């Protein structure tokens, strides 16, 4: 490893061969217990630049939460090198805390029995934000997240969507460089989800806040993230953009044609028919293959009513990724 290389100044997060092992005790008899080593994170290396929006994907137990806990400094890595905003998270946890915002979808960063307004006021004290700066930030987030009517409502009385907006405002009020969101849209309705995604994009472009989100909801990824890290069994199995993820081998695009009438499978160069259903036929394009010549041939040789090109379902791609790992 080249220790002398100057760290890239734009990297907000740098992980190099980070591992996290847990000892899980299991009952092995009436009194006997055996300890089993579980490698929750097993050699993760990646770096995230300032201003990126990155989705951390993976099945349950893949190591996403453990990774976020290490990135925030809650959990100490077993080995490897981790730098967030230039700091070692576990050693500089409270210093780092001022520069990051965290939204845990399943638990609240707000005070359950207090009105939102009081929660925000407390956070100002906890993060030691100057009054003026806090007021300006609060005014902005109240407007963007439409919190005006909710400020005096105790958090426990808010709907899930309302609460999540409050949580995100709470995580951003100290204007962190980096925002982590753990399953931020879980349980939200379609409108709330869209709104939240909109807001996240806006925070990212207007404030330059780096956003890292873990999610099961691929919609989050498609609408928010420009880059995807897929983790499985504690390892990184993919790092790239969504289109790249789609183009992974085995995940072909499909041309769907509606012919004028029922017909035997069409014959064109560069694609094979995978399914026929009445006048509708599905043609698989080889990975990386271009759709244009295929479409041109179809149009020239067959009576077409309609034609569509389908991107592979991102879900399918990821499922294939998991099963491969």
């Amino acid at each position, binding site marked *: 490893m080249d220790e002398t290389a100057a760290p890239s100044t734009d990297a907000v997060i740098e992980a190099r061969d980070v591992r996290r092992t847990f000892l899980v005790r299991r009952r092995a008899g009436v009194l006997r217990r055996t300890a089993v080593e579980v490698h929750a994170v097993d050699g993760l290396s990646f770096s995230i630049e300032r201003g990126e929006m990155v989705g951390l994907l993976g099945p349950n137990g893949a190591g996403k939460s453990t990774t976020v806990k290490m990135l*925030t400094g809650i959990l*100490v890595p077993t080995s490897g090198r981790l730098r967030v905003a230039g700091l070692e998270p576990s050693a500089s*946890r409270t210093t780092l805390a001022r520069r990051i915002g965290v939204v845990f979808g399943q*638990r609240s960063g707000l005070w359950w029995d*207090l009105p939102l307004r009081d929660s925000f006021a407390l956070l100002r*004290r*906890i993060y030691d934000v100057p009054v003026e700066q806090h007021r300006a930030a609060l005014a902005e987030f109240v407007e963007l997240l439409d919190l005006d009517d909710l400020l005096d409502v105790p958090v426990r009385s808010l709907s899930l969507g309302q609460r999540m907006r409050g949580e995100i405002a709470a995580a951003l009020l100290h204007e962190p460089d980096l925002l982590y969101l753990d399953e931020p849209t879980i349980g939200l309705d379609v409108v709330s989800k869209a709104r939240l995604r909109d807001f996240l994009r806006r925070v990212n472009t207007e404030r330059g806040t780096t956003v890292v989100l873990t999610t099961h909801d691929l919609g989050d990824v498609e609408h928010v993230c420009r880059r995807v890290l897929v983790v499985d069994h504690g390892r990184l199995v993919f790092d790239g953009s969504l289109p790249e993820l789609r183009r992974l081998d085995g995940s072909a695009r499909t041309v769907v044609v509606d012919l004028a009438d029922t017909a035997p499978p069409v014959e064109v160069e560069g694609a094979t028919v995978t399914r026929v259903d009445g006048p509708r036929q599905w043609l698989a394009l080889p990975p990386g293959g271009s759709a244009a010549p295929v479409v041109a041939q179809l149009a020239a040789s067959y009576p077409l009513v309609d034609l569509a090109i389908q991107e592979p379902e991102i879900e399918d791609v990821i499922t294939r990724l998991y099963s491969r790992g």
Partner: protein
Amino acid sequence: MTGALHALAAYRAIARVWIRAALTYRASFVALVLGQVLVTGGDFVAIVLMFAGIDTLAGFGLPEVALLYGLTGVGIGIADLLLGSVEQLGRRVRDGSLDTMLVRPVPALVQVAADQFALRRLGRITQSGAVLVWALVTIGIDWTLGRVAVLLVTVVCGAVIFCSIFVLGSAFQFLAGDAAEVSNAFTYGGNTLTQYPLTVYPVEVVRAVTFLLPLAFVNWYPALYLLGRDDPFGMPAALQLMSPVAAAAMAAVAAVGWRAGVRHYRSTGS
């Protein structure tokens, strides 16, 4: 230093919000405080009833027992008011809310302690304080500057010792998921134990609360000094002025214990 000031400011801010919330419903707040006065006062009523049939309990009269009772009650009362919420730690570990505290720039202990700050706990302090004042007035202590100082220092030390036990108890919950009851045995149990003159216990208990878990420094040794009595167990008279040492030692142990607990949590997950 700025870190400590910031932590203190955060504690005050969090506590203030809970106080304001509690005072929103005045009547209910007053009822809660009175309720606590009655509940904690029950112990003292029992002692008074006991004295209906006896003149002295193991060599101590009612006002003297009241002095012991008042000192330990005010000590645990202050500790309970300031740090009683740390009992919630086990729950916070289980429901993950500790994680949200660990990503904030204020020590988790401060946040756990200040959260749900319960001003109603003033009830115990008020009730024990009243008993303490009555005892001091009734006994007719030969007040010297030294005795006034010892009285004040004892109250502070008692609070520090009980605070330390609260913190140790909650640090233990990092290891044993829900050990709030174990912790209670030492805090409220320790309070009950020290409500009586130690002469009612075998000498092993006295040694234990002197050298193992220094509860005797909450009230017993300084009370002997205030009363100008010789130690019934023949312990050195110097112990009567050692409460600050015991409190400092307990605070140090508690600090180490808490840190170890947090470290354990952060290295094992939950």
